[in-house]
């Protein structure tokens, strides 16, 4: 038997979660280090996954398959394609930063003598989420995926509801109320999505007789498994709805600003940069793979919704007064781009969308974590409470600006590559939609630069005058993210080489090929490579 690398990659953070939770109440620091250690071990395993993965090889690699609930054809089946590898790497990469940034976020307040162990709980929950997200990216059994897709709601719920942002405009009680509202809203939205998906999962079993993604997709492609048009469409909608809530797509987005606003900054990063990616990932893997015809049928509506998300999210971001809610709406706009790229059904669109998932994760983490550092200093999330920070904390302001520039997709930083690929991939098939989507690039500059101007420039506000600059721990969290943004902006090939073959498979699932250019040009790049 070969070494079950994928299982271990998901199991290590789960074990870490249990051990962290078991650390005695007084050993808070030990719990933090333990969690960090396990997250780094997971990162090492994720790197190993990426190294062992052969881009030119079989579609799913490092596969594992065991019988689980034999009566119903549920199997414990894991496997990764290039898209999965990229997203596992993203997840494993971000968690150490989330832990590092949230190092002191869950220290018990002196006034609050809670009997449970908040610090241990906080880090254990983060690792638990990581484990579940990783296995969601690995599962090739629909039921297995569903279990973890739903189960990750539980630790997320406690992370949002139990560990709120201490910078809050209202009273403590008010803060607690808003926090629990946000947590419950998050839970209920996603539960409703999940329940509808559950119905579709059962429906799929009734039609196909098993839950294996590979078997069903192969049978669909070979024509041995017929689905009535309407059945396929209904099942597709059931899956898509759950993913569109999680992603989130307009108009199912309203839980995200609440959740990201009330959660601590590292948890907000966990939501938007990691957990939400399961939604867009699942669209690519499950919606297109299982229901190719229905996916094409629904494409026009989804593209329009994605376009609305892009413009709407960006406009709402412009109108926000709360820094974290602004980042949340910016994310909604970015998820619009990801979904646009997926359903444009071109290789540039889908490779771009996959890169976008990774790059958005890194850029949002950079921006949000620095914003969190800023907020924790001043104790306010309101943009209007800041001004002139650049003068007192130039390094903080500089890193914030780079995070912002990544968010507005400046060339040279990673998000530019993915955003341009999504745009060009969309434009190649739907020129009008692609052209409209470019409005997003102006609006992104607007909300980012307005945020920077209002918080960082101008005369120094009195309350801001004594803010310290970034501490070494904080710089240690941000600097690698910035280095990655630059590295992946200049040399995205490390990702595209892995992702491109997987996207080709996905496109062949839906039987789509790239549009041909109008004029045939011989000698491509002729003079360039001399």
């Amino acid at each position, binding site marked *: 038997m070969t070494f079950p690398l994928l299982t271990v990659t998901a199991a290590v953070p789960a074990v870490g979660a249990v051990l962290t939770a078991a650390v005695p109440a007084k050993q808070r620091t030990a719990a933090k280090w333990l969690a960090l250690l396990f997250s780094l071990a997971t990162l090492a395993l994720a790197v190993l996954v990426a190294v062992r993965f052969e881009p030119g090889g079989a579609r799913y690699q490092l596969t594992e398959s065991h019988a689980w*609930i034999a009566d*119903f054809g549920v199997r414990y089946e894991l496997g990764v394609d290039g898209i999965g590898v990229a997203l596992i790497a993203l997840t494993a990469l971000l968690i150490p930063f989330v832990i590092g940034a949230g190092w002191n976020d869950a220290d018990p307040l002196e006034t609050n003598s809670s009997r449970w162990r908040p610090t241990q709980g906080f880090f254990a929950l983060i690792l638990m989420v990581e484990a579940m997200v990783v296995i969601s990216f690995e599962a090739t059994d629909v039921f297995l995926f569903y*279990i973890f897709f*739903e*189960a990750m709601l*539980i630790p997320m719920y406690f992370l949002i509801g139990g560990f709120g942002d201490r910078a809050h405009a209202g009273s403590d009680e008010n803060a607690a*109320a808003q926090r*629990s*509202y946000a*947590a419950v809203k998050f*839970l209920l939205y996603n*539960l*409703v999505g999940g329940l509808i998906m*559950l119905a579709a999962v*059962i429906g799929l079993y009734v039609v196909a007789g098993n839950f294996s993604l590979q078997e069903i997709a192969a049978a669909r492609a070979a024509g041995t498994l017929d689905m009535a048009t309407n059945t396929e469409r209904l099942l597709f909608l059931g899956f898509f709805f759950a993913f569109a809530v999680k992603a989130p797509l*307009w*108009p199912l987005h*309203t839980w995200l600003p609440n959740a990201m606003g009330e959660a601590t900054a590292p948890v907000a990063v966990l939501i938007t940069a990691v957990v939400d990616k399961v939604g867009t990932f699942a669209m690519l893997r499950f919606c297109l793979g299982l229901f190719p015809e229905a996916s094409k049928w629904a494409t026009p509506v989804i593209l329009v919704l994605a376009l609305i998300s892009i413009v709407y999210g960006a*406009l*709402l971001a*412009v*109108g926000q007064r709360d820094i974290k809610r602004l980042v949340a709406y910016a994310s909604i706009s970015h998820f619009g781009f990801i979904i646009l790229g997926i359903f444009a059904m071109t290789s*540039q669109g889908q*490779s771009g969308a996959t890169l976008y998932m990774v790059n958005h994760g890194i850029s949002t983490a950079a921006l949000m974590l620095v914003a969190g550092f800023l907020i924790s200093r001043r104790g306010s999330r309101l943009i209007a409470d800041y001004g*002139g920070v*650049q*003068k007192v904390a130039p390094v903080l302001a*500089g890193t914030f600006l780079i995070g912002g520039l990544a968010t507005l997709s*400046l*060339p*040279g930083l990673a998000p530019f590559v993915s955003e*341009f690929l999504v*745009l060009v991939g969309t434009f190649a098939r739907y*020129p009008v939609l*692609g052209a409209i989507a*470019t409005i997003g*690039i*102006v609006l992104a*500059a607007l909300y980012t*630069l*307005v945020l920077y101007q209002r918080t960082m*420039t*101008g005369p120094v506000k009195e309350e801001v005058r004594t803010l310290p600059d970034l501490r070494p721990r904080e710089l240690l969290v941000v600097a690698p993210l910035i280095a990655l943004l630059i590295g992946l902006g*200049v*040399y*995205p*090939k490390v990702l*595209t080489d892995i992702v*491109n073959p997987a996207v080709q498979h996905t496109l062949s699932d839906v039987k789509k090929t790239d*549009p*041909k*250019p*109008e004029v045939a*040009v011989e*000698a*491509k*790049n002729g*003079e*360039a*490579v001399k």
Partner: protein
Amino acid sequence: MENLIALLVGAPLLGAAVLLCGGRRLDKAGHWLGTLLAAVSFGIGVALFADMLGRGAEDRTLYQHLFSWVSVGSFQADFAFRLDQLSMTFVLLISGVGTLIHVYSIGYMEHDERRRRFFGYLNLFVAAMLLLVLADNYLLLYFGWEGVGLASYLLIGFWQHKPSAATAAKKAFLVNRVGDIGLSIAIMLMFTTFGTFAFGPVLANADKASEGTLTAIGLMLLLAACGKSAQVPLQSWLGDAMEGPTPVSALIHAATMVTAGVYLIVRSGAIFNAAPDAQLVVTVVGAVTLLFGAIVGCAKDDIKKALAGSTMSQIGYMVLAAGLGPVGYVFAIMHLVTHGFFKAGLFLGAGSVMHGMNDEVDMRKYGGLRRYMPVTFVTFGLGYLAIIGFPGLSGFFSKDKIIEAAFAKGGTEGWILGGAALLGAGITAFYMTRVMLLTFFGEKRWQPAPDADQVPSAEPAAEHRAGRMPHPHESPKSMTIPMIVLAFGSVFAGAFFGLGDRFLNWLEPVTGYEHGNPPVGALTVTLSTMVVLAVGVAIAWSMYGRKPVPVVAPRGSFLTRAARRDLFQDDFNHVVLVRGGEHLTRSLVYVDHSLVDGVVNGTAASVGGLSGRLRKLQNGYARSYAVSMFGGTVVLIAATLLMRAV
């Protein structure tokens, strides 16, 4: 030799990285390092130039392929450089003028505590601008294009604690982003049309595509050019950009970055040649802008803003020439280079004047400075003679060719464009004479230093000198030497380029050339230009030379007031875009909160009572949310059990 191309970009990029990440340790030596690396870039440029001259016109183009940048399916963008006569011209201009301005800044920024960072940004600019002109495909050009936009943003807002500077920086970036939509769509169109966006294959096959597609690509490229080069209707940011330190205005907002739009159009000549409609629009934009900028330049009392209007106007000439096709490409670039010399010189002169005058920018508070700042006076004066096109100086040769080429377009269009260019020459003579007279001649109208907040583009050092009378003095050598060098260029470059058609022969293999059919002789054009020039100077003399100049600007005619307000373009933007946008976002925030959220919750409520439960939960009693959580878990478990039962 081609392996040296990357070093052109690499040297200043290294400088930027070291200076911006290096921390305070480098405060003492940072400016020297930055200047040195800009000079290294110039040195490599000269070496490559010498090498290029040693080869025949047909194989002067060098390529350097570094690595594959973005590669997805047929979408292939390489990190690859092309050095031909066109990019060589820019390399020398950018690194040459860039180095001079680094030297100038050593003195100019001496007392600024963030000087190291300033040099880091300048290096970043030089690197990005060189990337822009060296790129071998449009996506890499876009990289440089945004890079210079970023450097421009950082440098306009260098004195960020001044709200006006921060606002100006943001405005410049945003207006440029509108232009970027054009560049993005142009690249996408090239990709869907040719399957590539590398210069070689696109430009070689341009004529195979349909004219409609080419017109669309051309117009999108023009939109991009309008943003970067401050052409109507995207010109509004340039005047505000004068908030940046004056060396920045000289380098970025006069000599180099703002001419990137002209580069883009000339580089894409093959596309425009096959799209006459797009070309016509280019010429119209150029002609409108050259008059727009000139009119605005006439009314401004702020010396930098008057020069900014002039920059817009001069770039209008270049865009006009570029729109004329092969008749004008060479002259567009020739004027670009000579303008680089004299306008950078004029800005540095303005900076020198401000340096000696407590950072005062209002020309009505200057006067009689020629005796106190002789070097500045002479170099500025030569730049002045060059820009108005005084016979024999640089502007004379390059501008005259453009006016001639505009007439040569033929037909009514030719007469209109030529007439506009000729009229523009007269207005240029007027406003530049006005600047000259107000600054260096007449009575002293000096005033105590103003409150820095009162004067839009004053440098912030003024804060510390409020109330003191100015003691004008000549600037230090580090500042005057670059001015002298640029003055040499202003005087001799035109003749050197123009006589014997040197510049034409140099650039023609890349851009192509046609003589056109001018309806009037070259001599007639030159003589008419001389006449309007004399008229412009005479009017300015009668208004500002003969009569004393009031310190406080008179109310002026409607046209004057309109020109002071940039012909109301900003007011229009403010009312329509800013106010309108604010209303839109505010109502959307409301809609999102009450309508979208409400409808989605409401829909769910009709299914499962979600909304009511949500509202109840807002009260925040831990018990009720624990119950809810329990409910959720139960549902999950039930779901799993249900699966077993199926």
